[in-house]
């Protein structure tokens, strides 16, 4: 059976819909089905990240798009995980990954949660080494300079807000 839409490719998906109490059945090929927003298991499996983000509904697709396939970055210098690992598994490797992939994650978090800044309870670690990893004003000002130099104004605005918060 050929696809009802393009009439060229073999129909692989049989879409039954109820619209205004009338049942309609369409026979579509994978390409045309995908264009209509119908995703088969096969097409979902090709984008593992969309699997876990897909559960977030329409926001999920936007979040997946926040990590374009071409986006790359050096591996996390603590655990060695890469952005590709994250894309494959939907899970980061370690807490330090949030530092290693900050720009990507900031965008991703904003897409998922509508915000990238934690406003809940602040936590003070009993471990002094960990506490010392919190950025101080000098480090943030340096980061702000680097961001402005690199014309990354989105990051610069974020860092500026952080500095204001700390001040």
């Amino acid at each position, binding site marked *: 059976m050929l696809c009802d839409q393009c009439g060229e490719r073999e129909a692989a998906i049989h879409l039954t819909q109820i619209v205004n109490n009338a049942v309609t059945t369409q026979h579509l090929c994978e390409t045309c089905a995908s264009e209509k927003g119908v995703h088969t298991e096969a097409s979902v499996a090709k984008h593992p990240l969309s699997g*876990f*983000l897909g*559960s*977030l*509904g329409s*926001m999920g697709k936007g979040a997946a798009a926040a990590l374009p396939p071409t986006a790359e970055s050096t591996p996390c210098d*603590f*655990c060695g*995980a890469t952005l590709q690992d994250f894309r494959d*598994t*939907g*899970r*980061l*490797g*370690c*807490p*330090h990954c*949030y*530092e290693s992939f900050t720009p990507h*994650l*900031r965008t*991703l*978090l904003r897409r*998922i*949660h*509508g*915000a*990238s*800044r*934690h*406003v*809940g*309870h*602040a*936590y003070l*670690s*009993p*471990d002094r*080494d*960990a506490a010392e990893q*919190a*950025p101080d004003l000098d480090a943030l000002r340096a980061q702000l300079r680097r961001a402005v130099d690199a014309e990354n104004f989105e990051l610069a605005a*974020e860092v500026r807000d*952080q500095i204001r918060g700390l001040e």
Partner: protein
Amino acid sequence: MTLDLSLIPDGGVSWLDASGPDGNIVLSTRVRLARNIQGRPFAGRAEREELDDIRARTIEAGRSTSALEGAVDFRLDHLDRLERQLLHERHLVSKELAGLEREQGPRHAASLLTGGMLGMMVNEEDHLRLQTLCSGFALESAYAPLARFDQELGGLLPFAFHPEFGYLTACPTNAGTGLRASVLIHLPGLVLTKEIAKVLQGLAQVGLTFRGLYGEGSEVVGNFFQLSNQTTLGKSEEELLDHLGKIVRQVIEYEEQAREVLQQNAPNVIADKVWRAYGLLRYARTLSFDETMNLLSGVRLGVGLNLIDDLSVYTLNKLLIFTQPAHLARRAERALSDPDPPAIRAAFVRRVLEEDAARPPFPGSGDPQP
């Protein structure tokens, strides 16, 4: 290792007693916090030795808190499948921790430290998932002890926390507060009046999500829905709980309105549905799990509408938990794969209902109209 559930206070299911607010419509309230140890790879990327170390440190710290002093711990990777599923059916562990969907079973050193109502999952996708489970619609009662436990534990273990992103989690969907609160709610009125689709759509628009009886990835059976917050970052813990609470309160009101409409417009149809469900549960000789859930939903509606007045919600809650596959198999000392459960399930349901209701075989009272 054999699982001895009697070691857990109330078997971990004290919430079944339906003593909480709105216990007829809301079965339980669960709040969980995702936490990780600073300077350690997340569980999915950790070596066996690291997972052992995380287990040792966190269980020791957990037992040092006032909430879980002397609590019992289970290693999921040392339990057989039936035992792991049993813990999952009691909502004490997630599917992920129980390794029910992983070919290789649970993760090495996957553990549960539990004091019954409050517990701590170790080596889930995050190092720690702290959770409380309460009867009825009780977000504050569920969160308050959890927040105290979190604070005490956070003083003993260095949690991974970032000043901008908050608590760091393996999946960015949990970052920030790490808080997911969910309310298990029974909505037969909205399903029968076909209003449910609108309500569920509305939930998505206000940043909430719904799942089935067993949380993520589970189907809706028996008109039981888990409503929970979708996002965890950008709002404080209190704001997240407050928002969920307000919306759930509205959903409860919609459900009550729907039940009123049903009773006004189609009392005989509803009474018939309720009593048919009761009749099948009381007399059927085989019952599948899904059918049992749907019939329990009908009977629960009948109790809520005062059509059935001598059956307790507690009994219905007990049936909900104890007719699940692993619970049934354990009770009958059979393997999970045994083909007999439908008959065993029906016999068990009959016995519980007979004992609880002491009802004459052909009830003549309770009809809303002649």
